[in-house]
């Protein structure tokens, strides 16, 4: 491990938290504007976190307290680690070579799992119901998510994200496989709100039904950690989609001859813009225009429809490659 990586390892989480919160702020603002409200200022999530950190952290009497307190940390750590595997535009991923898409899949699951375990550990009936729902939902959307990753492994013969990021997927696939990749993209876009526990798949946190479910008993610092991990994960998920499906760099589109700092600045801004577009499309727009599904409806959607889309996409990719 070189000093370079260490520097990255400290810089990225800070940057990740900052970007995650900014995107969350933009998301809230845009969603409010879409529903003809004014909405909170974009820096509102920062204030929320600051306020939560100042509040008292309450551990319920009948909770398993070490498990209850450990889960927010694990959730945040997993989202942070996830961020370290994602190449930022032309920047290489800090943990390049130490893991691949499979690890990303596990890290994505780990955070949901941490929330579910925290819900079970808190001993509240609302949290238990929420945690059960989260488990059911996770079992439903993991399959299409895994299919997408297998599809990429088929194309590149590798699970490495750096390999994938270095060559745009569209340049190496034929028309049939291209169609397959589009279907995989659609499947991943549908999985995104479920992965991020946003409407219409925020069944595990439905506030009108089970009072925020798994998070019902969390407060203060623990809740702030979950809040942060949620923000970071939202950003990471959108970034992952950009890396996989929209890898075009600005310099390759316009044939720019940029070098050094200007290249990095332009490409970083371009990358952030792409992430923002994906975030707004897959999260903000969807959560503003749908009602919450019931758990068995959501399960059916993933197991039947999304799986069909993903598997057909996979088959097309397989035929094309």
């Amino acid at each position, binding site marked *: 491990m070189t000093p370079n990586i260490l520097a990255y390892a400290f810089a990225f989480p800070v940057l990740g938290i900052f970007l995650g919160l900014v995107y969350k702020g933009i998301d809230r603002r845009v969603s409010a504007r879409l529903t003809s409200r004014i909405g909170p200022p974009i820096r509102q999530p920062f204030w929320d976190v600051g306020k939560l950190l100042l509040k008292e952290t309450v551990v319920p009497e009948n909770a398993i307290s070490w498990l209850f307190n450990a889960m927010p940390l694990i959730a945040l750590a997993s989202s942070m680690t996830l961020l370290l595997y994602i190449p930022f535009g032309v920047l290489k991923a800090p943990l390049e070579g130490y893991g691949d898409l499979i690890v990303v899949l596990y890290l994505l699951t780990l955070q949901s799992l941490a929330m579910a375990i925290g819900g079970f550990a808190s001993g509240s*009936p609302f949290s238990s119901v929420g945690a059960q729902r989260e488990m059911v939902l996770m079992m439903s959307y993991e399959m299409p998510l895994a299919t997408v990753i297998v599809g990429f492994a088929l194309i590149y013969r590798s699970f490495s994200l750096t390999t994938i990021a270095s060559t745009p997927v569209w340049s190496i696939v034929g028309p049939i496989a291209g169609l397959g990749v589009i279907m995989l993209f659609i499947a991943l876009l549908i999985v995104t709100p479920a992965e991020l526990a946003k409407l219409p798949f925020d069944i595990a946190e*439905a506030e009108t039904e089970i009072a925020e479910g798994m998070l019902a008993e969390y407060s203060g610092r623990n809740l702030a950690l979950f809040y942060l991990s949620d923000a970071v994960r939202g950003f990471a998920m959108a970034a992952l989609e950009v890396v996989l499906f929209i890898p075009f760099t600005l310099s390759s589109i316009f044939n720019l001859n940029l070098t050094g700092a200007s290249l990095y600045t332009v490409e970083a801004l371009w990358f952030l813009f792409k992430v923002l577009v994906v975030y707004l499309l897959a999260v903000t727009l969807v959560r503003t225009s749908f009602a919450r599904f019931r*758990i068995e*409806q959501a399960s059916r959607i993933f197991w039947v429809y999304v799986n069909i889309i993903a598997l057909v996409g996979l088959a097309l990719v397989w035929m094309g490659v």
Partner: protein
Amino acid sequence: MTKSQYYIPIGPIHPALKEPIRVEAKVEGEKIVEVDVKRGFAHRGIEYMGMKRNAIQALYLSERICGICSISHPYAFVVGSEKALGIEAPPRAQYIRTIIAELERIHSHILWLGVVAHEVGFDSLLFWTWKGREKVLDVLELISGNRINYSMYMIGGVRRDLKESHIKALKEMIDYYRIFNQEMKNLFLADPVYKARTRGVAQLSKEMALKVNAVGPTARAAGLRMDIRQDIPYDAYADIEVRGIVPQDIVGEVYGDAYDATLVRIYEIDQSVDIIEYCIDNLPEGKIMAIPNYVVLLSKIKRTKGEGIGAHEAPRGEVIHYFKYDGTRDGPAVWKVVAPSYNNINSWAPLLLGAEVADIPVVVAYIDPCMCCNDRIAVVRDSSGKIVDSTTLHRMAVEKTMRIKKELGVKE
């Protein structure tokens, strides 16, 4: 293996409940196996208070029974008192009363539609419907001076007359809601996700609706053709021949579920708009109070012995008031109020049994529960953080009414 049972207490404070009530549900997995409802968290003894006051004070007390349908209790109060006292309101007053009651039905139904959208997790629709509701609230504020608690009614008439400018604003509002309601039909009734969440949920059969004594849209959604405006027509409703709206008339079949309740309520907004239009087109001329002097009215109440039942079809169902004036006091000797939710909450226990946890908010919202709201003190701060006193607040409210009048182009 025995399935583990959870005990889920819902309320008295819960995000799905707008007012305090407690539903205790025993849950197996996601299925509810046992239900108990405890009410009375907002019981304020209003009937008791009313029996210690004079009739006019009690009338305005009755307006505070409910925070949403604030005119339905006074309506039943004046109808019942007029029956008991043998007073008859002038025709113009009766028409104005009907207009106000229908305006309130529009705003209450839109409010319900927004709430139910929120309960199924569709917040965008909540914001949109409530934005549309502002129009009728503005008109109500223009007519009565208040968005809620209009203080319009009086035993034997109404306190404020409708002016030409009000009628112009009403006509504008009618055009607005004709379009708005069409959009609502598209958004609620044609939306697949909304249909998936409400079809088959909170399904109340016709027999069950009779047994649990359900009233209003809840009963009508179950296919019972009951509506006080149709069964015991009073005021302008007798001239209009109102008919209760039931799903079998609209789509030909009855499920009695939350989707049908939505259907009934949306079509009732159309009906209300039609009633208001009829009333303003046929508004009779004349005075607005049978006994304009309150002292004379109170002394008449003090001299009269009589009993009466007043019924009004509130947005949520029938409101029944029973009065007994004993000829010694200027207020009611016995006053009994039955609000629609009093009966409609009976349907929760049979509906929730076997349902899923996700259905609780829809079942609860389905009947549009209206527990009497708790007394509250609202402390309002201005932009610099100073507490605004009630005089300033009142001045600001009056200024806002003036602004609305100006915006709607009203000149006194």
